[in-house]
């Protein structure tokens, strides 16, 4: 056997594949991916159409906060769903985003768009400050420490002067670009768009483009694979050349930024924030959205976030009993769908029998890479007969 001495220095590369694989099926109903895309387009169309159906103050406000919840949940999905870091104090980053944007716009008088980079920077910093010491811990310990940090941020906001203490910050302006602000609204093709509709569209655009598509794309790339590897087996991930510490802190920072942007949007919508709006309850609720929907699954998390934000509205008639019914629903869902409503490993029911067939091979290492594929297919065909 000849040894290839020259290969010792250059980085080892894989031999080229022995055979062509059949292209993955496309189509809306023949592939998971196509179906999800079609579903996504349908959702975007629904989002665009909604104000034309009902542009009342109530509907717009509920829809906008539901969208902000989706953004928030997608951020937590990066931390909990992809990287597997249980975070019980995620509201901290939401608070950081809301307070930083609130302080920059009211105290310093910056326009909202200029506060956005500041929010992102502050969230990156907060992610590093909270993440750097805690991410050496695993599972339960991490959950406890993040729970503590979530409370620390709230209590700090409660006691600082610049954050307005217990009364919080009032009169946060809406987004304005130059002389035009959302409050002016605008008219297009004779249709008048009031402030709430413009803001709704703005939030929808950010949530769809950055929140959902952005997070989904990050999860599919190199970093996303590293996150999932860390979640599944940290030691094996480390052995595969992934610096798990960096992978975890990246997930944490991305999650922090997503939450911060959601916080800024929420601050704009409510125009007033106080430490009371950042209680532990919301961390738990948003974690519930992720776990209920299906950890690491984009459609699942969206469903979960919509459920968590809309259920209190739908159950308004039961006011006092709201959380009890909520709890019972949760128990039922967890009994019948323990991996979540739409798990990340889900295969569409009608695709289950269409599993791709194994590619043709001629046994282990029997065929040199130069062998033509025709030989293989004919040999396989004879076997089949």
């Amino acid at each position: 056997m000849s040894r290839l001495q020259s290969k010792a220095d250059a980085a080892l590369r894989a031999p080229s594949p022995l055979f062509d694989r059949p292209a993955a099926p496309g189509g809306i109903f023949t592939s998971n991916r196509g179906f999800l895309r079609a579903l996504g387009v349908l959702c975007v169309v629904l989002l665009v159409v909604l104000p034309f159906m009902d542009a009342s103050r109530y509907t717009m406000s509920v829809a906008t906060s539901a969208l902000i919840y989706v953004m928030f949940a997608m951020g937590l999905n990066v931390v909990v769903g992809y990287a597997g870091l249980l975070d019980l104090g995620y509201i901290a980053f939401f608070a950081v985003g809301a307070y930083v944007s609130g302080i920059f716009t009211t105290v310093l008088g910056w326009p909202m768009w200029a506060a956005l980079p500041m929010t992102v920077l502050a969230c990156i910093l907060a992610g590093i400050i909270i993440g750097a010491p805690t991410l050496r811990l695993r599972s339960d310990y991490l959950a406890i420490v993040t729970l503590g940090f979530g409370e620390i941020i709230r209590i700090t906001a409660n006691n600082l002067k610049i954050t307005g203490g217990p009364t919080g910050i009032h009169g946060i302006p809406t987004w304005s670009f130059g002389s035009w602000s959302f409050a002016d609204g605008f008219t297009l093709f004779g249709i008048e768009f009031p402030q709430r509709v413009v803001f709704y569209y703005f939030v929808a655009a950010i949530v769809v483009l950055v929140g959902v598509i952005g997070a989904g794309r990050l999860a599919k790339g190199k970093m996303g694979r590293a996150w999932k590897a860390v979640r599944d087996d940290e030691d094996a991930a480390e052995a595969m050349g992934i610096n798990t510490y960096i992978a975890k802190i990246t997930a944490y920072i991305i999650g922090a930024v997503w939450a911060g942007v959601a916080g800024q949007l929420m601050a704009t919508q409510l125009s007033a924030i106080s430490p009371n709006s950042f209680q532990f309850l919301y961390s738990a609720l948003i974690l519930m959205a992720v776990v209920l929907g299906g950890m690491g699954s984009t459609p699942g998390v969206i469903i979960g976030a919509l459920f968590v934000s809309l259920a209190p509205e739908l159950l308004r008639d039961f006011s006092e009993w709201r959380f009890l019914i909520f709890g019972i629903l949760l128990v039922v869902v967890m009994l019948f769908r323990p991996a979540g409503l739409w798990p990340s490993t889900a295969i569409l029911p009608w695709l289950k029998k269409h599993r791709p067939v194994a590619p043709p091979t001629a046994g282990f290492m029997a065929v040199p890479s130069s062998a033509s594929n025709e030989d293989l297919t004919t040999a396989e065909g004879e076997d089949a007969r």
Partner: protein
Amino acid sequence: MSTLLEVKDLRLQFGGVKAVDGLSFTVESEEILAVIGPNGAGKTSAFNCISGFYLPTSGKVVFDGKDIVRNAPGFWRSLRLVDLLQSFGFYRVLPSRVTKWGMARTFQNLRLFRELSVLDNVKTAMHANIREGFWATLLHTPGYRRAEAECAEQARGWLDFVGFEGDENLFVTQLPYGEQRRVEIARALATSPKLLLLDEPAAGLNFNEKQALMQLIRSIRDLGVAVVLIEHDMGLIMNLAERIVVLNYGKEIAVGTPDQIKNDPVVIEAYLGVEDEPLDPTKLQTGTVDLSLLDDGKKGKLS
């Protein structure tokens, strides 16, 4: 042939237990070296030290001219901050760095990423070899698409190389055990190693699968990768290995070719024990007497 890995006087202590106790051996480039030894001899502990998972108590591991064991300065030691610093990745070489230098490993119990598909498992191992920026990933630039396509092709190449014949989109947990072993080797190869550490690769494989594994390990070596394997299957080792290191009590007791090892009295002693002298009835008698004495003693204490 040059020395790829040099282990010198490696020691690893867990409290009072000396798991590795002065181990020294070398691995030449492009050779197949087997590490054998009775259970608990410290083979896996040594592997973990070499690949950076454990921090050895003392000793030297040089891989490809780079030191894997590092010492913190005495100042930090005096402040007892060494553990803290090392847990942050200072004054140690992280396993991920060792892998980037070109040492891949597999685990004794399969440790594949259970919720990733077969293809993604192998792609994950190419983490250090592909360049994808944050914005490129977010915007799906042509460079990103090219990197992903290249990554997928390489991963498929490795899967074909190890003879994986199943569906690459299946989750690894859906595969039979033998196939999972193949995927794990493909995953280790995808890190572009110069040295591959295999921890009991043949455990749980049937005869045919073992034959295929032997062929696979030879073809890995022919790519220019040195292979070090821990194994208990003597037949496989005697056929495959070019050199064998025998460990006992955390220390190498013999190094040599399979033929030398087979006839080495020290090795035979470690595995089978010393041959007793023919049974002597008087000795047997004293044995029983000793036992009864012990019994009496216990009774005495109890009463």
